[in-house]
């Protein structure tokens, strides 16, 4: 029997910042959440989970508790990858979270992980997420900063995911940074036989710069990876986002979907599927809308090296179609309502295999942006 998780007692956050966290799916009252990790700057405020068989620990505690964890450290992401990984690897006092779902465990309500940056500093985290054989693990990660972080700050985040045989991880990340924050996630996952890895990313709010290229290596047979990204870039935001799937196991398949809107900012939308084995499939799709002059630069790459891998991509960048707007106007919606309705539809990506609660959370954070007039 699982007990109810406790609400976060003293988050020391202003009402406004609590609202910012709510927008990224962080529920401080812990309704519909089975566990929580909250890190403010470099301080761990909360790490707990009420679901049997699933542990949420701070990085430090996890390393003390499990010797074997060192085997996972820097296994999916190389510490020598770039200056970000080197910076995090060099930390004497690493922080972040470790989530371990034991064999056969399953969480109906997601675990929330929240990384909050409220000071002028570099926040660094190293996260390790493991779903053991047959486990099903759902995580929502809300990353946010205070509305005004003085001269700005940065977030360096290493996340290593391990999806064991017959296991499944869904990781839904919603960002709500501000104009002077730079964000550099470095994520990779290793998926074993019949494993499923779902990664969803939503960023509807301004950020100075974000640069990430999470990679899923589908090692096992019949493995699945699905990446979805829904982003809006406002003036002054520079978003270089991508996702990559390496298809190694026979029967591995990947789907990478992006919806990008620029209102004046820059979006580089990268994608790469590498089919290395026969019997693998992959599809990459990027659709972009330019609402105000800005940049959407889609770079879809598909790479196949054996007979029997099937890969495809489609990319399109355009504007709102006048005939679609007028069609809705002829049904009584004014131009702004018609435009918002079409954009909302454009951003509506349904992710197969995602629990309803998480899909609702994604929908809610897009709805929030719609209310503000996109």
């Amino acid at each position, binding site marked *: 029997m699982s007990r109810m998780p406790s609400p976060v007692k003293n988050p020391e956050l202003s009402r406004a910042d609590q609202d910012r966290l709510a927008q990224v799916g962080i529920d401080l009252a812990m309704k519909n959440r089975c566990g929580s990790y909250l890190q403010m700057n470099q301080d761990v405020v909360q790490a707990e989970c009420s679901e049997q068989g699933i542990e949420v620990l701070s990085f430090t505690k996890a390393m003390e508790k499990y010797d074997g964890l060192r085997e996972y450290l820097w296994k999916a992401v190389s510490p020598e990858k770039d200056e970000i990984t080197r910076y995090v690897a060099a930390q004497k006092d690493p922080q972040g979270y470790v989530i371990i779902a034991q064999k056969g465990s399953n969480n109906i309500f997601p675990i929330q992980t929240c990384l909050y940056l409220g000071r002028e500093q570099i926040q660094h985290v190293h996260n390790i997420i493991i779903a053991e054989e047959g486990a099903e693990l759902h995580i929502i990660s809300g990353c946010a900063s205070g509305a005004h972080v003085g001269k700005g700050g940065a977030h360096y985040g290493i996340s290593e995911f391990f999806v064991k045989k017959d296991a499944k991880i869904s990781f839904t990340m919603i960002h709500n940074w501000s104009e002077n924050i730079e964000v550099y996630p470095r994520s990779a996952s290793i998926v074993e036989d019949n494993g499923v890895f779902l990664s969803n990313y939503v960023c509807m709010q301004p950020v100075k710069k974000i640069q990430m290229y999470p990679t899923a290596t589908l090692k096992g047979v019949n493995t699945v990876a699905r990446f979805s990204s829904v982003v809006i870039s406002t003036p002054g935001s520079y978003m270089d986002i991508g996702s990559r799937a390496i298809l190694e196991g026979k029967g591995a398949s990947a789907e990478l979907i992006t919806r990008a809107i620029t209102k004046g900012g820059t979006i580089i939308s990268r994608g790469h599927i590498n089919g290395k084995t026969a019997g693998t499939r992959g599809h990459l799709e990027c659709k972009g809308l330019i609402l105000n002059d800005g940049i959407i630069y889609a770079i879809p790459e598909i790479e196949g090296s054996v007979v029997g891998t099937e890969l495809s991509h489609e990319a399109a960048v355009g504007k709102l179609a006048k005939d679609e707007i007028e069609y809705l106007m*002829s*049904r*009584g919606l*004014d*131009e702004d309502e018609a435009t918002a309705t079409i954009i909302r*539809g*454009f951003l509506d*990506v349904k992710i197969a295999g995602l629990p309803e609660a998480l899909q609702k959370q994604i929908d809610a954070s897009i709805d929030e942006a719609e209310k503000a007039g996109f």
Partner: protein
Amino acid sequence: MLHIEDLHVKVGDKEVLHDINLHIEEGETHVLLGPNGSGKTTLLMTIMGFTSYSITDGKIIFRGEDVTTLKSHERAQRGIGMLFQRPPTISGLKLGKMLTAISRNKDKDISELAKSVHMDKFLERDINKGFSGGEIKRSEVLQLMIQNPDFVMLDEPESGVDLENISLIGNAIGSLLEKEKHLINRKKSGLVITHTGFILDYIDADKGHVMCDGEIKCHGNPREILKEIKQRGYKECLECRHQ
């Protein structure tokens, strides 16, 4: 209800409708006939207020109000509605979401209405994406059922519809036009483009007009005009008028 006076319409630089006059009273349904490319759809799109169709002269009066310069949504809000022959596909926008948006939270049971035109399984589909001809028409009729306009324009409601669906769509359109009500109590009016005339079995059409080269050239009993056209073709039909 709708009065069109001396209407001239340009698309791009070219005048495509010349001096159109049309008067449709409350409770009346008129039929617009004419060869392909004669300007029938253009007239409907102009009445609906689509911006590619610019009115260079003349007026459109709806219920005593000059709506010539009103935007499309303002005309819709005043009670003008249209069934499109080839509506656009809107990627990502679900039919159900669109219906909710156009219902404006009025107390309408969208799923019940959808069931009545066999569209309940399409509410989670992108609007018009991969819809067959009949499905497009059923979706259009469903949207109009929710919009509930007083003046209904129908652009070839039977085109692309199989025989099985024609009565479903015909009856639904009939009820949009209050055909079940006695003539005296009928408040809804309509303007219908048809080539086949199948739809006339489901609506009481009061008058027919034949359009050619952007002009209305002939008026009369819709069934008689249609019979004439079927027997002799448009060419002879129009020649008859010019004699």
